[in-house]
C-alpha cells in the first residue's frame, strides 16, 4: 500500500492542473469550466490550431506539450478517462487558427467518440476541423476486434512534428496527410515489472510475481496479453526491437523514443536506450534522432516503452521536417533542446 500524495481524493486532477498552470504561467493558461489548458503564445505563421487530449495520468502528455511550436491546447480527462466533448469543443474554439483546428487523438473508443462529437459541434459553428488518429501499439494489432491498435508513445512524436509543420503555415489537409504518414511509420511496444498505484485504493492495479514481466502492456493499467519470465535486458530489448521493426515499413534510419512508464529511473531508461541503439545497429538501422524520458507514463507503473518512427525515405518525417525546430512547451525545454 502506497497511498499517493493527493490534496483530495476526488479533486486531485484539478488540483494538479492548477499547480501546473501556476508553475508555467509564462507559457500556458488554464480554463476551469470546462477544463482545458491553452498556450498563451503562438507563431504568427501558424494557420491551424493543434489540440490534443485524453485521460490524465500520462503527464507531461498532453498539457506539458502545450506551448509555442507545439500544441495550442490540451483537454485532460479524469485519470485514464476521455475528456468530455465540451472540453474538446471549447478548447478547440480557443485554439482554432484562421484555417481551423486539428485534433490529435489516441485510438480509444471514448476518445474517438468525444472528439468526434466536438468536431461535429465545431463544423456546426463553421470552424474547419480534422483528426489525426494515433494507433501505434503493436501489442494490440493481432486482436480479433474492430477497435484496432491502441495509441501510445507515438502521440508525443506526432505532436512535435505536426507542431513544426503548423508553424511553417501548413493547412489542415497538409497536416492530416503528414500526421497519417508519421503514424503509419511509427510503432511501439511496452513492458512493465510493477503495476501502477490505483489513485482510489492506493493498491497496485494488478499483481505480478517476482521475475515476471507484462509484455505488451497498455498505458491505462490494463494487463498485457502475455506475462513472460524476465529475460536479460539485452534479450528483452532485442525482442521488443524485433516486434516494433517487423511492424514498420522498411528503412535504415529511425527516430527512437524510449519512454518511461512513470516508475522507471533515468538510469534504467538510458540503459534501455543504449541497448536499443546497439540492437538497431546490428540490424543496420541508425538512430537519427532520439528522445528519452517519461513523456507518456501510466501513473507510476514501473516499465518502459520503445517507439520508433521510420524516417527514410519519407522526406516529410525526416528531422529537417520539424524535429529540430524551436519550441517552448513546459515538458520539452530540458528534453529536446539539443
Amino acid at each position: 500500500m502506497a497511498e499517493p500524495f493527493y490534496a483530495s481524493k476526488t479533486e486531485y486532477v484539478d488540483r494538479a492542473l492548477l499547480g501546473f498552470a501556476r508553475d508555467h504561467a509564462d507559457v500556458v493558461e488554464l480554463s476551469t469550466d470546462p477544463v482545458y489548458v491553452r498556450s498563451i503564445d503562438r507563431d504568427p505563421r501558424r494557420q491551424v490550431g493543434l489540440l490534443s487530449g485524453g485521460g490524465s495520468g500520462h503527464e507531461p502528455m498532453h498539457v506539458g506539450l502545450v506551448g509555442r511550436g507545439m500544441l495550442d491546447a490540451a483537454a485532460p480527462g479524469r485519470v485514464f478517462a476521455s475528456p468530455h466533448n465540451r472540453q474538446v469543443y471549447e478548447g478547440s474554439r480557443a485554439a482554432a487558427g484562421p484555417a481551423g483546428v486539428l485534433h490529435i487523438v489516441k485510438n480509444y473508443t471514448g476518445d474517438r467518440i468525444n472528439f468526434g462529437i466536438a468536431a461535429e459541434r465545431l463544423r456546426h459553428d463553421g470552424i474547419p476541423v480534422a483528426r489525426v488518429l494515433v494507433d501505434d501499439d503493436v501489442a494490440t494489432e493481432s486482436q480479433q476486434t474492430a477497435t484496432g491498435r491502441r495509441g501510445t508513445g507515438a502521440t508525443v512524436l506526432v505532436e512535435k512534428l505536426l507542431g513544426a509543420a503548423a508553424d511553417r503555415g501548413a493547412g489542415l489537409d497538409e497536416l492530416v496527410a503528414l500526421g497519417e504518414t508519421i503514424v503509419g511509420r511509427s510503432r511501439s511496444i511496452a513492458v512493465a515489472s510493477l503495476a501502477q498505484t490505483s489513485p482510489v485504493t492506493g493498491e497496485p492495479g494488478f499483481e505480478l510475481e517476482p521475475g515476471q514481466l507484462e509484455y505488451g502492456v497498455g498505458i491505462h493499467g490494463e494487463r498485457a496479453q502475455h506475462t513472460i519470465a524476465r529475460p536479460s535486458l539485452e534479450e528483452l530489448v532485442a525482442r521488443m526491437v524485433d516486434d516494433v521493426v517487423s511492424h514498420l515499413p522498411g528503412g535504415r534510419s529511425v527516430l527512437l523514443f524510449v519512454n518511461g512508464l512513470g516508475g522507471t529511473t533515468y538510469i534504467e531508461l538510458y540503459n534501455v536506450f543504449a541497448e536499443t541503439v546497439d540492437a538497431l545497429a546490428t540490424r543496420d538501422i541508425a538512430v537519427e534522432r532520439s528522445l528519452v524520458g517519461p513523456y507518456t507514463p501510466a501513473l507510476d507503473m514501473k516499465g518502459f516503452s520503445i517507439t520508433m518512427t521510420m524516417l527514410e525515405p519519407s522526406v516529410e518525417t525526416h528531422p529537417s521536417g520539424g524535429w529540430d525546430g524551436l519550441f517552448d512547451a513546459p515538458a520539452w525545454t530540458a528534453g529536446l533542446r539539443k
Partner: protein
Amino acid sequence: MLMNLYHEAAESAYGELTRLDQAAGDGDYGDNLRAGLRGAVARIPPDADLATEFETAATYFLDEVGGTSGPLIGLLFNDVGGSLDRGGDGDDALVAGLAAGTAAISRVGEASVGDRTMLDCLGPTVDDLRAARPPVDWTMVANQAFDHARATSDLLPRMGRASYVGQRAVGNPDAGAMGMALLFWALAVYRDPAGRAQLPDPARLV
C-alpha cells in the same frame, strides 16, 4: 411542447429502458435519457418555437448528459434545430434535420445500421420519411419506428458497450433504439394529437 411529450414518454418507459439496458450494458440509458429531457424541458422558454426547443435540448444533452448516448442524442437535436432554424418548422426541414443528425451519429459513433444501436431505429425511420409522400403521416411513421426498434432483438451487438456481452444481448431490443422510437412517438403526438390512440403505450414497450 414537443420536448414535454418526449419527456412524458421517457418517464413512462423509464423502467423498461433500464431493464433493457441492464440486460446488455451498464443500465444507465433510462437515467440519462430521463435526466436529459428533464433538464432540457426546464430550460426551454414557454413560448419557444420547435427550432428553439431542439437547440436548447441539444446544448443540454451535449454539455450535461453523461454516457455516450446522451451527447449523441444532442448531436441529433443540434442538426434538427439547425435545419428548422434555416428552413422553418415544416416537415421538409424536420426530415432534413433528422437525416443530417442520423448521419452525424453514424460518423461520430463509427457505426452503421445493423450494429444494434440507436441507428437501427433512426436510419430506417429516416428512410421511411424520405420515401413518404407529403403530407407525412406521423402516426404511421412512429409505428414503423417502433417496429424498427423492436427488430433489434435479433441483432448481435458490434459497437457500443453491448458488444462486450455479445450473444447475451440477443432476444431483447436495444434500449438506444427504443429511446429513438419514443422520439418519433412524441413527434407523432405533437403533429397529430388525434392519432395518439393508434400508437404503442410507452409504458409497455416490449
